[in-house]
């Protein structure tokens, strides 16, 4: 990575979607849960983020989708130094990131359809323009007959698929998924992984946090592994 002030470059030519440089993070006045995290997510890459429970995977993703600020170090989003972002600019960055939360974060007073369509709606898109695409996506994740259901009436795996559909509906430049297959059977997990690789093939950068070893082994892609808040990068050969 060249060191010449990357935050002044135009986004489109910037090869790094997300870049961490010496990042540390703590909650409130607690201990640092992330230390000296430095890595790059090149545009168009597909990577896993693994590590034992409590290692800091979710915390790292929070930094990526701008729900937390680092307590030290620098983070660039699409070539912009995030410490210099104005609050007004956060929504634009977030719209370029599709996020699958470990706890789904679906809205229980809205139907499955409304939940999936949410990113398009808040971006000001016309319902007529997106209704069919949203419905088709919901079918694709196998929830066609649950379109009008409330998320809390769905199984964990079904809710997870709602969360995934919502993350990808806006065709984000970066898809970040926190344990996206934690609640589904292996067949559905493969199907969802295919959705991610398909999106990646179409140009979306993908980062998946998981401790599902079979999932990690099913693809030959770079792996970042967190342990005790520190990062190791490597690559594990499929079925190694």
């Amino acid at each position: 990575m060249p060191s010449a002030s990357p935050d002044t470059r135009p986004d489109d030519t910037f090869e790094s979607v997300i870049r961490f440089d010496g990042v540390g993070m703590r909650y409130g006045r607690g201990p640092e849960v992330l230390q000296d995290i430095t890595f790059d997510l090149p545009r168009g890459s597909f990577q896993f983020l693994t590590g034992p429970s409590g290692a800091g995977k979710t915390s790292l993703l929070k930094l990526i989708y701008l729900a937390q600020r680092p307590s030290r170090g620098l983070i660039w989003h699409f070539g912009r130094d995030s410490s210099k972002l104005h609050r007004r600019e956060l929504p634009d960055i977030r719209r370029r990131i599709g996020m699958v939360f470990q706890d789904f974060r679906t809205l229980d007073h809205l139907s499955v359809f409304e939940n999936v369509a949410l990113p398009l709606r808040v971006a000001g898109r016309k319902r007529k323009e997106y209704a069919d695409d949203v419905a088709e996506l919901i079918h694709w994740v196998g929830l066609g007959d649950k379109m009008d259901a409330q998320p809390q009436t769905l199984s964990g795996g079904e809710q997870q698929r709602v969360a995934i559909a919502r993350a990808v509906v806006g065709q984000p430049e970066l898809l970040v998924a926190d344990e996206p297959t934690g609640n589904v059977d292996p067949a559905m997990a493969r199907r969802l992984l295919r959705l991610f690789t398909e999106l990646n093939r179409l140009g979306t950068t993908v980062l998946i946090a998981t401790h599902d070893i079979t999932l990690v082994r099913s693809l030959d892609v770079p792996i970042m592994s967190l342990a005790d808040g520190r990062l190791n990068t490597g690559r594990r050969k499929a079925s190694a």
Partner: protein
Amino acid sequence: MSEERLPPTAPEKSAPLLPADSGRDRPLFAVAAILVFLACLAALGARGAWTVSDGWIADLSGRMTVQIMPVDGRDAEADAAEAAALAEALPGVRRAVAGTRAEAEALLEPWLGGEGLPADLPVPLLVDIELAAADPASADDLTAALDAAGIPHRVDDHARWSEAVVRTARLARLMALGLLALIAGAAAAVIAFAARASLAARQSVVDALHLVGAQDGYIARLFERRFFVLGIRAGIAGAFFAFAIALLVTYGGPGQSEGFIPVWSFSLWDGAVLLLAPVLAGLIAALSARLAVANDLRARW
């Protein structure tokens, strides 16, 4: 994405993004309606104070009163008649009417009883003078004319009173307007407080909206719209009750009233008050909710 069977239904209408919360909103509705009710009463009362004080001022400023002093050996009634004739002859006087002893006694009756006064008790007689609207005669003109005729008298041009009345009327108006401003301020504060509480209660919704890329303004507008509707509804209820009370006071109560009592008159002002109240309530609610939420959101990140 793969072509599978096409969706049977994408739901037709968008659901509201903020979950309804009637349990929390109902007390707020009541408070807002009561405030609008009070504001309407204050506005109608202000109109009452306006009308009444205008009447007082008009009554006082077009008139003078001459008191004919009873002096031993003089015929007060004759003096009064002469004074009336002299006054009427002056330029700037439209009419002068001499009061009789009987009228003077009638005026004193509330204080002295109805038995009739001893005939030899001297009673000052009054000459009521109505001034011309243009170029009215002054108290000095009148005094000069009566002095010249040697009639013992005192001229009262009501200046002392009309000053006091004008001052009182101005004060009454200011009080009415101040009351309105205070109630509007209280309404705005209550709504701002409620909007913040509402925002806090829907924190998870707001977080989710933020995380899928909603602007602060977008979220503030959701609250703004909700509180606008609440304000309009509460405004209609409050204005309706104020109308009912005013009708009751006007037609069921003591009838003609003065000052701050909100009587109904089918005037433009009264109609405007009741029609504008819900709109203003809606706007105040929308504005303060928007500012409160925007302020709250800005403090984050």
